[in-house]
């Protein structure tokens, strides 16, 4: 068995009683006891996640903006204030999604991108290849030496301010989806839970101390299990489940992140315009007893679909899912989901399912 990659917090997780699992080649904590309790902890108070497996990539040099305008499906021209962040997909020429990411505008010659762990190597190859072709003056620098800790929940920012002297002055006026540097740390008011909070990048060597300091201030560790149910309730896509290299953003609920109206050209645009979507992503709420899971078939009056992310919602205490279904399916429709040997009733609902501590469905 190839050895699993470890984050700088591996020993800390084990010391805190984490159950570790192989997560795409990384040895990561899935929970520290109860996934459901961890989920509620984040919705009701706050918790911290080790997301050091995600990769930080800096695009540096003159013309960085022009390069990203071409590389990304969302328009970096929306970023006018230093520190501001944008969610985007990065597409293949055929319109399939290579990855989804957050790009931060720091300076005209420095944009910072955070990509998924499992796709990071592939992303880097693609970005370097595109840069070599279109903007050879740029440097694409990845930062495996940076750790990342997400602190999320209604009390997250206050806890970070208590644990990290000097951070309040710098970050209390940060609007959502923006970031600021603090020495060698990078504090972003972003996340993947539907709650307020920060994602903090810092040198790997400093991560165990910061993690321990947060714990001393009462911030509970949260595993990747709860991270997944939190993001699903928040209606946030997960790469490889809700979209991939064969399924584009328009069929993945991400039309809001794709700018097809401006004259700007970007990789994948022609394919998106040539192939209007016939499927769309919707939310499902299970009415019968059971649990919706990835890849279960959805039967609607307009044809078949498939669940792309399904689980149990601890906030709603019901099963929920994201599903890709024919365009004709509407909010409020009743559908059937094939679960083992049964057909279970579900309702098509708007998502997010829950945010800011409350269920919305």
């Amino acid at each position, binding site marked *: 068995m190839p050895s699993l990659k470890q984050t700088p917090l591996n020993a800390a997780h084990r010391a805190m009683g984490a*159950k570790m699992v192989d997560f795409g080649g990384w040895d990561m904590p899935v929970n520290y006891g*109860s*996934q459901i309790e961890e989920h509620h902890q984040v919705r009701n108070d706050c918790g911290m996640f080790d997301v050091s497996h995600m990769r930080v990539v800096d695009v540096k040099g003159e013309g960085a903006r022009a390069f990203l305008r071409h590389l990304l499906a969302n328009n970096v021209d929306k970023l006018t204030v230093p520190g501001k962040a944008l969610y985007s997909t990065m597409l293949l020429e055929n319109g399939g999604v290579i990855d989804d990411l957050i790009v931060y505008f720091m300076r005209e010659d420095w944009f910072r991108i955070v990509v998924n762990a499992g796709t990071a190597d592939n992303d880097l190859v693609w970005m370097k290849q595109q840069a070599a072709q279109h903007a050879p003056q740029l440097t694409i620098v990845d930062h495996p030496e940076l750790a990342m800790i997400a602190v999320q929940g209604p009390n997250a920012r206050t806890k970070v301010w208590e644990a990290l002297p000097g951070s309040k002055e710098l970050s209390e006026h940060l609007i959502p989806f923006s970031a600021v540097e603090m020495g060698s740390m990078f504090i972003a008011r972003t996340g993947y839970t539907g709650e307020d909070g920060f994602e903090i990048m810092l040198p790997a060597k400093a991560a165990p101390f910061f993690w321990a300091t947060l714990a001393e201030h009462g911030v509970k560790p949260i595993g990747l299990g709860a991270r997944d*149910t939190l993001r699903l309730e928040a209606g946030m896509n997960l790469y490889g489940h809700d979209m991939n290299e064969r399924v584009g953003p328009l069929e993945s609920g991400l039309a809001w992140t794709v700018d097809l109206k401006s004259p700007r050209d970007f990789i994948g645009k022609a394919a998106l315009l040539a192939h209007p979507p016939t499927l769309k992503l919707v939310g499902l709420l299970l009415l019968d007893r*059971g*649990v919706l899971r990835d890849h279960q078939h959805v039967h609607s009056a307009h044809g078949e679909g498939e669940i792309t992310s399904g*689980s*149990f919602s*601890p906030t709603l205490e019901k*099963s929920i899912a994201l599903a890709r279904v024919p365009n004709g399916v509407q909010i409020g429709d009743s559908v059937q989901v094939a679960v083992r040997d049964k057909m279970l009733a579900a309702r098509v609902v708007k998502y997010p399912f829950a945010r800011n501590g409350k269920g919305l469905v």
Partner: protein
Amino acid sequence: MSNPGNLKYTASHEWVKTEADGTLTVGITDHAQELLGDMVFVEAPTAGRKLKAKEECAVVESVKAAADVYAPVSGTVTAANSELDGTPEAINSDPYGAWIFKMKPDNAADVAALLDATAYQAVVDSEAH
């Protein structure tokens, strides 16, 4: 939690208790609930259903995954634990108390052939490698 010595076990992680009247009470082991995590749904077989040994007969679902529960021996289901409908998490907190179904074995001798606590622990240990 150690595996109670008065129970029998299967390699597929069910525990089996023989009651005074010969009925079998079946649940999943502490090791199984630990692997699955927070339980959110249990689908037990209905009374009267005939089971063959090793047949899939119940489903337990945690937040993380669904897992089949297998009939430890051949026989007939006599009861399902309806309390688990509202409190599936009892399997996490009390795996050897939160039974899933009861059955009458076709052949009581089949039960004797199941694993004892020591043999079951050896199965668990071998999975860890």
